[in-house]
């Protein structure tokens, strides 16, 4: 058996985490103020999934990586300018509204439909990757729902490592409580893996990879299908910033000994 893999990475986009986020309620429900203007990045845990996928594919000749991404075309294009330089993949864009307040079930439906329609995809080689949670909705359910829709019942979440064996079976490390990993062995594809951080550093930008990718990314973006996401009976009664601001006491010009005494007393206090 060869270890040719068909890896489909589901990855959305998220506002750069250094941006200030302010909720607003518009005609279609809640959103972020100036959302389309905020600089966006590929969702961080899903980005780990993409880098792991590219790394895995490069080790098993004949493998292929698709990146299925749902978001406004213009934003996807902006994010792809950098992401395309980091890994080799074929982009499958789905043109849809931006933001974390859309219903996860609708998103999962659109992703599953796009995956099912991929030409040449072989289910026996299929690994569905993504982040175990997004940085927007953060629900941690989309991949599970995609898996169920595609009838895949070997699913792993919080994955930090996959080790593929020659017979097509693989071992997976999933995060569980207390800083431990659960180790499982699966007999092979198809499977769903929701990634946490993984083990790879973010690849450096490679302009050549970027140029090669862009030849297929731009036409794909032009042809991106528009998806409408239904609310599935979801109503928001309020969307607000959590009250986080504290009155900070800033302690300066005190000796380490004095500070240490205060900290030790604080640790001991109830």
């Amino acid at each position, binding site marked *: 058996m060869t270890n040719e893999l068909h890896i489909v990475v589901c990855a959305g986009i998220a506002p750069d*985490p*250094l941006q200030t*986020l302010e909720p607003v309620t518009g005609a279609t429900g809640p959103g*972020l103020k100036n959302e389309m203007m905020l600089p966006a990045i590929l969702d*961080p845990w899903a980005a780990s999934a993409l880098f792991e996928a590219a790394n895995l594919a490069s080790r098993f000749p004949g493998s292929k990586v698709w990146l299925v991404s749902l978001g406004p075309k213009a934003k996807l294009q902006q994010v792809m300018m950098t992401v395309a330089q980091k890994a080799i993949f074929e982009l499958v864009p789905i043109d849809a509204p931006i933001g*974390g*307040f859309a*219903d*996860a*079930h609708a998103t999962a439906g659109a992703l599953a439909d796009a995956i099912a329609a991929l030409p040449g995809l072989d289910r026996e080689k299929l690994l569905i990757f993504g982040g175990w949670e997004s*940085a927007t909705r953060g*629900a*941690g*359910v989309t991949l*599970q*729902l995609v898996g*169920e829709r595609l009838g895949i*019942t*070997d*699913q792993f*979440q*919080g994955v*930090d490592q996959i080790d593929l064996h020659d017979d097509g079976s693989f071992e997976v*490390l*999933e*995060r*569980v*409580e207390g*800083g*431990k990993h*659960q*180790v499982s*062995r*699966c007999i092979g594809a198809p499977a769903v893996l929701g990634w946490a951080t993984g083990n*790879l*550093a973010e690849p450096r930008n490679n302009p050549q990879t970027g140029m090669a990718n862009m030849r297929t990314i731009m036409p794909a973006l032009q042809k991106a299908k528009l998806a409408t996401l239904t609310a*599935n*009976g*979801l*109503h*928001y009664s*309020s969307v607000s*910033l*959590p009250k*986080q601001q*504290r009155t*900070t*006491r*800033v*302690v*300066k010009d005190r000796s*380490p000994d004095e*500070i*240490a*005494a*205060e*900290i030790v007393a*604080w*640790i*001991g206090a109830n």
Partner: protein
Amino acid sequence: MVESILVLTHADENGMLSQASLEGVTAGKDLSVGLGAPLVIGVVAVNGSLATSLGFGNARVLCVADEALAQSRYASDAAACEALCRAAHASIVIVAAGSRFTRVAAGVAFRLGGLIDTHITSINVSASGEGRSIEVTRSFYRQRIEAVLSRDARPWFLLIDAGTHAAFTGDGPVGEVEDVPVELPSLRTQVLGLRAPQQNALTIRPEAKLLLVAGAGWTKKQADGQTHAAEAGDLILGFLRNTGASLGSSKSLVDQGGDGGPVLPFLTHMNQIGQTGSMPRHAKGLSTCCHGEEPHVVGWRFIADRRAISLDPNCGWARGKADVVYVADAFKVMAKVNEKLAAANEANSAVAAPDRDFQRSQEVDAAVLV
């Protein structure tokens, strides 16, 4: 809408209901009282008798038992939960988030034709036109925006965050348990065991009252123009040993291994707190050599009492993110803190008990539990 409630629970490795499951039962009981709705407890176990040895008041108790359910695995857990849901016919299904059921809850909701919302921190019942309605609170954008929401569709699965409800301790005598049959699919995955990464054996302790966060400042050049990573490591581990605290880290510090910078060998990405890390729950948190930038601080959402030691008086912590900021050299302060804690421990003070588990883990180096 006439509601009925099912709480999905599972046994832990000792056969008793897991901590998360007990929290789920409390949430279910509260909601059942609030709505005046019947409650069913669904149990997934190898052998139901231990797991159902608590009294659940007037709740109906259903149990799926099978050898294969010893393993925390999607295919078998989803089938077991699906069987319980079909037997209970509930309109609201409560699941408490632990890694096991978090993995399957959405899949089960899908099989039942239902919908799911997750990371719920509170469930509220309010009187509405036709009776009572349920609203839940959860966060978006990694704890940066809070929303209150509801759904018309049923069954509605609610995955509640750990630590948001007290653990259920029992209510009255043990009642009757109904066995629910389950047909498991052919299982392609075997769970081999648990593994603690060698480097961070026992530095992550969800139960600890105190979180110590180490930031990238620990491995940066200090006033003398040198880095002092070994000394930093000793100070941090010394503090953990003295207090039993859990260890968190900023992303910049854990990323340094990959970037070839000086490293603290006991840290991994599992220690990372924040936007792309964890959001632990501890009563108190002490940040050291960390700037307190937003992507890091979102991970402190559930840490009420926060202090920080930083050289920078304008760091994020000083701008409303911590209660107290000590503008000082963490190397000097933590050395003194450790001295005082060690002396207090020596004198068998109640201030902080020495952490024997941690000491043992250092000696035995019991890294691989598989």
